[in-house]
């Protein structure tokens, strides 16, 4: 089959690789009909996540059709149209039983490797480095899905492929971002990053009763989308002082909930007040946790900062004094998609959330390198490029 392989930093190529086979009794093989790029792939492609190996098939946000099931797959059959959650959960460990699927004890074959860095192994993720299991990804014609009964969900007939594909990762990540931010009716929510995940967080924040959502980004076309599709007020941090604007927008209190939907490759204008003061005082270098710092600074006293933008290792100059003295709550995590899917289908069906506008560029696998360049450089008003391996 054809598959989009990572061969080195910013080097993707379509290769002929063997078709996947059932390796364990709870596996299923899925014929991929759509597979989306995700902002977190950029961290792999740009070389910020360790343990990638040349030849790894990337991609983790996908839908498809069941073509083969292992001996112990009970809920799926050949021909089922399914969305597969990007994070793999065994369904039986304490974490899966508590619906914290991305913390699964048993789905990462490289638990030992991950323990060396994170102390405890977390769940495997499709196409997302050997640290997260080394599973072959979905930018391919076929993919092996372990623990398929738990990770693959039949898509209701009245939900289109264009919506369903984002239920694999973007929508549940956005939902969990709003949930971790503890959005309550009447809250004002600030979301850094107006990409796919950020905008799903905005829509979900409204679904939870937010009074107002403020989107922060530097790309005007994404902010325009956030206003149009996700109902957000918008701030371009290259034009304004974000901390002042957020105070202005919240009657001087600050946002109740702050969501970091950017992560470790954040861009910044480098003018945040606290950051500058700290930097000046300690004479430290800049790094790329600027969104997290700004969210901690902006958040109202007693508010919550929710982190779904991906971080891999260490960041420095986190303003702990602000965090501690303002009595903030900070939460983070990879999403527990399996927990949310049925409810998300329902929200999509009722058009309370709608991810369809994210699909701006349907492309072939052969266009992989170019599609990721476009997605990385934010050209052609790209929100998401989505591969259709059989078109």
């Amino acid at each position, binding site marked *: *089959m054809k*598959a989009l*392989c990572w*061969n080195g930093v910013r080097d993707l*190529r379509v*290769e002929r*690789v*063997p*078709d*996947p*086979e059932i*390796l*364990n*009794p*709870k596996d299923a093989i899925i014929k991929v009909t759509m597979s989306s790029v995700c902002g977190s792939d950029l961290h792999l492609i740009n070389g910020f996540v360790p343990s990638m*190996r*040349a*030849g*790894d*098939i990337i991609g983790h946000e996908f839908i498809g059709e069941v073509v083969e099931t292992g001996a*112990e797959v009970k809920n799926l059959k050949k021909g089922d149209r399914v969305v597969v959650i990007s994070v*793999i959960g*065994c*369904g*039986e*460990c*304490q974490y899966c*039983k508590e619906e914290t699927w991305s913390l699964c*004890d*048993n*789905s*990462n*074959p490289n*638990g*030992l490797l991950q323990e060396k860095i994170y102390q405890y192994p977390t769940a*495997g993720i499709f196409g997302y480095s050997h640290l997260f*299991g*080394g*599973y*072959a990804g979905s930018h*391919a014609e076929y993919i*092996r899905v*372990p*623990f398929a009964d738990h990770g693959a969900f039949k898509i209701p007939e009245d939900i289109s492929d264009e919506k369903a594909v984002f239920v694999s990762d973007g929508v549940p990540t956005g939902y969990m971002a709003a949930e971790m931010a503890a959005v309550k009716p009447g809250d004002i929510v600030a979301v850094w990053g107006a990409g796919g995940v950020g905008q799903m967080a905005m829509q979900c924040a409204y679904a939870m009763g937010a009074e107002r959502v403020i989107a922060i980004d530097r790309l005007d076309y994404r902010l325009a989308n956030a206003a149009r599709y996700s109902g957000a007020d918008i701030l371009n941090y290259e034009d304004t002082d974000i901390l002042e604007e957020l105070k202005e927008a919240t009657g001087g209190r600050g946002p109740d909930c702050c969501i970091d939907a950017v992560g470790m490759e954040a861009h910044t204008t480098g003018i945040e007040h606290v950051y500058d003061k700290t930097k000046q005082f300690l004479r430290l270098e800049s790094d790329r946790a600027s969104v997290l710092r700004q969210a901690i600074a902006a958040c109202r006293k007693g508010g919550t900062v929710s982190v779904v933008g991906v971080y891999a290792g260490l960041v420095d100059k986190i303003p702990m004094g602000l965090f501690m003295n303002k009595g903030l709550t900070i939460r983070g995590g990879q999403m527990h998609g399996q927990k949310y899917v049925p409810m998300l289908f329902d929200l999509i069906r009722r058009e309370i959330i709608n991810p369809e506008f994210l699909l701006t560029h349907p492309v072939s696998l052969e266009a992989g390198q170019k599609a990721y360049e476009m997605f990385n450089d934010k050209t052609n008003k790209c929100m998401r490029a989505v591969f259709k391996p059989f078109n």
Partner: protein
Amino acid sequence: MKTEQLLHAGYHQPKRKNNFNNVNTAERLLSLAAGGILLAKHYKRALSNPIKVLTGAYLVYRGLSGNCPLYTGLNKNSNETNAINTRVIFTVNKPREEVYRYWRQLENLPFFMSHLQRVDQKNDVQSEWIAKIPGGVGTIKWNAEIVKEIPNELIGWQSVENSSIDNAGKVEFYDAPRGQGTVLKVIFSYHPPAGALGEGVAKLFNPLFKTLLKEDIRAFKQVIEAGEVATIKGQSSGRK
């Protein structure tokens, strides 16, 4: 886990006691060789090189007799080795009785212990173990017996005397708090062959051994919880 604590669990730890022979075979051979060379080179001019000649003679005596007066003075015996202990702890999300039952059926162990080929339980106490030697150069066989058993709490075993693999160990089973299943403590104690030299080599490999044991117990957790061991062996990639 110290040897004394293992003793409390119901084992005797084999110790090779011999007060006169306190030099092991490898050291004796080295002593003979070094002493012989010193003597051969310097005995003709013994008066100008008394220290070298005396050293040579001392080494030859040590090699021939297996007794080292210096070791006696230091209360050292290179024939005695310290056990290499490895300890692994895991929580398994299944009831204690079920985890215990699975483990007590020793024939199950090769399902998750990657280097074990087969375990045959001959009776309630005795069993025969066959392991693959890493590198695929064959198998090694030994007999073990269960020396202590408290149903649903503890299994302790030990290889029978003169086994090719001199080992002992125990598994303890505790309830995890908040209904989170069973805490499994595995302690494996191994007497390296070939005295102090073997001990040094075994210590070098101990981190590797601990990793192997840990991965085996992790596989046990996966088998008993999820019903299979997560793997990517045999999956597709663009690697040639």
